[in-house]
């Protein structure tokens, strides 16, 4: 697999100027920031909550909160990472409400055994896209990711689907880098395990 980390950038991010203008009351600048990131925030919220209506509300709440707290944004992190952090918190809060105040946090259900070795001996052949049509595959993927605890779903979504770097993911989730790596490993393995129930395997080499 190709490396999926983003390169470190030292130069000033173009968002900084937009944020400064928005802080000074320039509505068009803030609208531009919405245009740039609404889709990503929607996808993240949709992934974590697994609910379209919640995701729409979260997009609104996230940008409104960002606007109200704009003065607090110091530019130590990227504006996008800051925004994602707000969106993740809003998403977890929604899940909490939906589950009738049962605690939902980044730590929920993630204290599983680390490093247990999966027992598989055969590759998926053909690959998932070849085995299922778009609609059917979509249903399987949804069902599979819904079974993951929200803490794992968040890490997987930010790192693997939205392609944030490990450091950005850690910052957005308020976790340490080693904690992100450990959760990412377990999230990937759990998803792989759940998905494998739907996958045909190559006979050759199967035991």
């Amino acid at each position: 697999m190709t490396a999926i980390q983003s390169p470190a950038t030292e130069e000033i991010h173009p968002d900084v100027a937009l944020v400064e203008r928005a802080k000074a009351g320039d509505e068009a600048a803030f609208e531009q920031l919405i245009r740039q990131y609404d889709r990503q925030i929607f996808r993240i919220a949709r992934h974590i909550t697994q609910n379209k209506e919640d995701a729409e509300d979260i997009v609104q709440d996230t940008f409104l909160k960002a606007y109200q707290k704009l003065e607090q944004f110091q530019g130590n992190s990227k504006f996008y990472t800051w925004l994602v952090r707000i969106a993740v918190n809003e998403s977890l809060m929604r899940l909490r409400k939906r589950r009738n105040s049962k605690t939902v946090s980044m730590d929920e259900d993630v204290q599983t055994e680390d490093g247990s070795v999966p027992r598989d001996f055969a590759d998926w052949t053909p690959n998932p896209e070849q085995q299922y049509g778009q609609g059917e595959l979509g249903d399987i993927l949804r069902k599979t990711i819904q079974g993951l605890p929200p803490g794992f779903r968040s890490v997987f979504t930010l790192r693997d689907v939205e392609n944030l770097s490990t450091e950005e993911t850690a910052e957005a989730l308020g976790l340490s880098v080693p904690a992100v790596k450990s959760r990412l490993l377990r999230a990937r393995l759990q998803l792989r395990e759940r998905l494998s129930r739907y996958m045909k395997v190559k006979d050759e080499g199967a035991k």
Partner: protein
Amino acid sequence: MTCTEFLAKMTDYFDGTVDASLLEEVKAHLCECSHCEVVVNTTQQTIQVYRDHQIYEYEMPESLRDRLRTAIMEKCRGSRCK
């Protein structure tokens, strides 16, 4: 290198951040352990299928984007007047 030790390095291996001193060991383990090779292949397929599928599936239609953006800007204006 054991399978458990390999697994602990799998995230770094995917990210291309395995220490140079360990990389040869990781690669050697993958060459000799067909089991871990399968885990790597199927995990990579898992990541890829989610990345490809979900990004397109969870895309917002332009009409929804417009509606939400308008609503957000109205709320922002309202919140500033307080």
